[in-house]
């Protein structure tokens, strides 16, 4: 009984957390925003835009990228890569208000630049906090810069830990928790998860992971008195103690290696052959499987959770809303893909951006459980990166431009 109570207390306490290192509400500090939720508190976002309407600013980029912009305070950080071999790695900082480029730094890549033509070396999204930005690249180069562009530290993880192998191209993004930066380096060769001190880059812990190519971004979940960092591959989702790297629990199965897990209030929602809702157990016990269903399919985009509902985009470009209690479909609507970007939510609206530059704005405040598409906004550009939301604006990134879209 005591164990049950303790477990209940812990599970009840799992919640979204604001990162401890001075990220403010309204910031969008990492892939899928605050703690990877894909949800912003921002209001007053635009419903309609075009190349002629509601473009607050548009900044030209020096190279390709699938990485998303991240925003902390008045700084918008972004990565890009250029060069025939993609061996020039760019870190850029723009002023959120007007798109002025405040600084740009470059690194020479030290790891393999081999990848599928769809992706590139600037695929992982950087993560930022008040101390600056942590830029991670598919070459396993990682660097930290302060908000003014001074290099704080740099590491070549391909030289530190030889044998990293992913000829399709690495793309999972790092996350920050407290003084720790978690780096997902699951791959077909020397496969591992790494935690470094975000202030110095020094390794805090490193654990071996399954050998397979993988694109899953870690997820930090925090309960009363305990925080876990979750790493997922196609074979497992495993929780580690953030401070020590000690394995806490693991759930194995046919999971996604592309679409990242998300926290749904008291449960961990895991994409895969069967979309699975887990409740973490205490200690090292296996988590409880609350439900699993093959009706929720994810493709490249990851799921988003809001108010007890899971939103997913499947291969056919169908947006599906499912009940997080049991996984049952509540409504679905056919959009037009292909989609690479994960949808994002703010102010009661879901924004789904397809590769061809059309953003579907879907009203989530419906009483009749029927989807209502409010607008389809086209920009003549190619988009693979997940949008960011901050400053009452959407930030969309193509290979050539960073767009800031807001009511004018």
């Amino acid at each position: 009984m005591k164990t049950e109570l303790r477990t209940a207390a812990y599970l009840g306490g799992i919640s979204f957390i604001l990162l401890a290192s001075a990220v403010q509400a309204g910031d969008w500090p990492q892939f899928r925003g605050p703690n990877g939720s894909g949800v912003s508190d921002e209001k007053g976002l635009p419903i309609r835009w075009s190349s002629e309407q509601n473009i607050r600013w548009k900044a030209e980029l020096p190279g390709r990228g699938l990485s998303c912009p991240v925003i902390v305070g008045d700084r918008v950080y972004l990565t890009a890569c250029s060069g025939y071999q993609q061996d020039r790695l760019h870190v850029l900082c723009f002023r959120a208000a007007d798109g002025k480029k405040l600084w740009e730094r470059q690194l020479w890549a030290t790891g393999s630049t081999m990848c599928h033509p769809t992706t590139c070396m600037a695929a992982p999204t950087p993560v930022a906090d008040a101390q600056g930005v942590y830029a991670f690249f598919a070459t396993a180069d990682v660097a930290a810069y302060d908000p003014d562009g001074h290099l704080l530290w740099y590491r070549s993880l391909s030289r530190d830990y030889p044998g990293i192998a992913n000829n399709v191209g690495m793309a999972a993004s790092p996350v920050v928790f407290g003084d720790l930066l978690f780096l997902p380096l699951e791959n077909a060769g020397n496969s591992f998860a790494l935690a470094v001190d975000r202030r110095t880059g020094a390794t805090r812990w490193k654990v071996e992971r399954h050998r397979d190519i993988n694109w899953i971004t870690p997820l930090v979940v925090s309960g009363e008195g305990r925080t876990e960092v979750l790493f997922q591959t196609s074979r497992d989702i495993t929780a580690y103690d953030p401070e020590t790297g000690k394995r806490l629990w693991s759930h194995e199965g046919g999971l996604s290696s592309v679409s990242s897990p998300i926290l749904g209030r008291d449960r961990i929602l895991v994409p895969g052959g069967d979309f699975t809702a887990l409740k973490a157990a205490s200690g090292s016990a296996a988590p409880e499987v609350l439900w699993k269903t093959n009706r929720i399919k994810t493709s490249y985009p990851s799921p988003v959770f809001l108010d007890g509902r899971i939103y997913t985009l499947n291969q056919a470009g169908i947006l599906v809303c499912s009940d997080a209690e049991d996984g049952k479909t509540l409504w679905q609507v056919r959009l037009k893909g292909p989609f690479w970007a994960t949808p994002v939510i703010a102010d009661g609206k879901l924004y789904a951006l397809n590769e061809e530059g059309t953003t579907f704005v879907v009203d989530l405040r419906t009483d009749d459980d029927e989807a209502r598409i409010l607008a389809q906004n086209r920009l003549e550009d190619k988009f693979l990166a997940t949008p960011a939301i901050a400053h009452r604006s959407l930030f969309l990134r193509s290979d050539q431009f960073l767009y800031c879209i807001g009511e004018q």
Partner: protein
Amino acid sequence: MTHRTTVFGIGLVSIALGFSMLLAADDPPLETNHEFEAALKALLTVSKEGKGAAEAARAVRQLSGRPADVLPALLRPMDQASPEARNYLRAAIEAIADNTIAGGKPLPVKQLEAFLQDQAHDPKARRLAYDLLLRVDPTVPQRWLPGMLQDPSLELRRDAVALAMREAEAALASGDKGTARRKFEQAFQGARDRDQVDALAKHLKNLGVAVDIAGHFGFIRDWMLAGPFDNSGGVGFAAVYAPEKGVDPKQTYVGKQNLQVAWKPHSTTDPYGVVDLNKAIGKHMGAVGYAYAVVESPEARPVEVRVGSNNAVKVWLNGQEMIAHEEYHHGNRMDQYVGSGTLKAGRNEVLIKVCQNEQKEEWAQSWSFQLRLCDRVGSAVPVTVVKLRADQASAGTAEGREQP
């Protein structure tokens, strides 16, 4: 004293000597050099796993406030710097350049041009000097690129080739086929990137000029092949089969499923030197194939062995493992894997092991490789590939073929 200690000691002496050489006549006044030297040392001594990062970060910040005349003194150490140190040096250089340009002050153009001109310097550092010059002078490409078709910097060379190609295309458009052909040929000789080589080969073919792409890149086309050996369940990558202990083309082996395996010659006519083992050895899954070549080098020289393959591969040069990559069907690109070594004067042996797994998907049926010998710029090294026959002893000679 251990070997490691000795190396460390030599390293410190080298760094000390390096500093005295770096502080040349055009560097800052003597009263600031001590501080500069300490900061530079912090950047150069940063090492793997983030060691020395805090000191290096302080140094970047200190150096960022320095005037632009220190830029050459920060570029020069890149010649010997580690990849980590180079990226720290770059951060300081970019910050200094930003501050200088934002403050309306000039960059040390003459010194940067002198650095760019000196091909003995690190190619990436020279390209950085070029980029700095470009920030303050838009005429830099027209002034510098025409003389850079054979530059050791791949990026400078690429831009020079692109410029020459544009000029050739303009000549062609104006009907001057003679000039176009000459410029296309010059550009082709300089080109090292596949997309440019392909485009130039197409132009030259249209003008009636035949080009040897495989020879241009230094692909080995003449091999002895042996296989299949077992790779069921992926056991073959780590297994040490007989060819890895020494190759004698007359030798036969018992291979996968007790198949009799003998060396047989194979020459590829693929323009990029691709050897299709499904055709040359036979269609097998869960199999290992070996390819062996002998090349004669007129002199001892550094060499890069570059491989492309969808399969897991290991490569040895004169028995020394150069490349080992265990990854299957995630993509294939020319120069995908690169190993650095040394060619001996005279006879050299190249052995590649190509492992095919047991995936059933249509896209996972490729069992092939391409391998070339080149310098660090990607230029073919001058070797003669010895054509071997199975009835010859391993040391046997045969008709050779020059690799340009």
